[in-house]
């Protein structure tokens, strides 16, 4: 801890906590959402392709 006297100092960000953490939180969430969507779509695609293959084989 070179910059910060305490954790509460750290979270306060010199009074700008809302702005700084708001930025980082939203960025984190957006990235998380992208990765999650990507995984979900990937899984859906595989499932869909398998289903269609089954149909075609019938």
């Amino acid at each position, binding site marked *: *801890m*070179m*910059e*910060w006297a305490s954790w509460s100092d*750290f979270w306060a*960000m*010199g*009074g*700008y906590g809302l*702005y*700084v953490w*708001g*930025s*980082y939180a*939203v*960025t984190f969430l*957006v*990235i998380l959402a*992208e*990765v999650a969507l*990507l995984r979900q*779509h*990937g899984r859906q*695609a*595989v499932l869909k*392709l*398998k289903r*269609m*293959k089954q149909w075609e084989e019938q």
Partner: protein
Amino acid sequence: MSINWYKYASPATFYGLAGRLIPGFAWAAAVLAAAGLYIAFFLAPTDFQQGEAYRVIFIHVPAAWMGMFIYLVMAFWSAVGLAFNTRLSFMMARALAPTGAMFTFVSLWTGALWGKPMWGAWWVWDARLTSTLILLFLYVGIMALWAAIDDPRRGDRAGALLTIVGAINVPIIYFSVKWWNTLHQGASVKPSGTSMDEVMLAGMLVMAVAAWFYSIAVAFARVRRIILERERHTDWVNAQLERA
């Protein structure tokens, strides 16, 4: 050069290659992001003008860079696709767009959150801000066009044409907005690249490289899905499905 580019341009080969590369890029991105965040919050000193608020810069600037850079890469792949009719290029362009839009959105969001304490307003009609907003509109327009066309061939080409027209227009838009803004006396504070502390700069660069690797990993993952959907009647995809 003896590398057989056409081999790697074949979706089947690229599918495997991308699959092997993704974990590497993903881990590199994670490690670099951790390092960047450590620098950002524990090594970089407090800014004497802006106080701690400036720490937004470590995501704001990399995100802004990636937003613009990814558009250029998309335009490049679109041009390649139209010129050489390589399917993989179009797929790359498609895979990149959501990530580009995401970064552009992040740069807008973080900029807005930064602007409130610094300028006293969430938003001002500054040249950089406005042109970033228009860039987001371009991304959205391209993705909306893709979404509206369900024939993949047509979608690829139409999207590529729009991307390229946009790429020619982006510099024009940027300068027009700048010109427009300076003729009026606009916002008095502007984001300025004043001489920067070296640690700060290092943190920003590390974060930028992390964003870069992240984009590559995500785009590869997305392109793999697109390849699967497009090539689903081929034998290798069937074999792939057996395994999955």
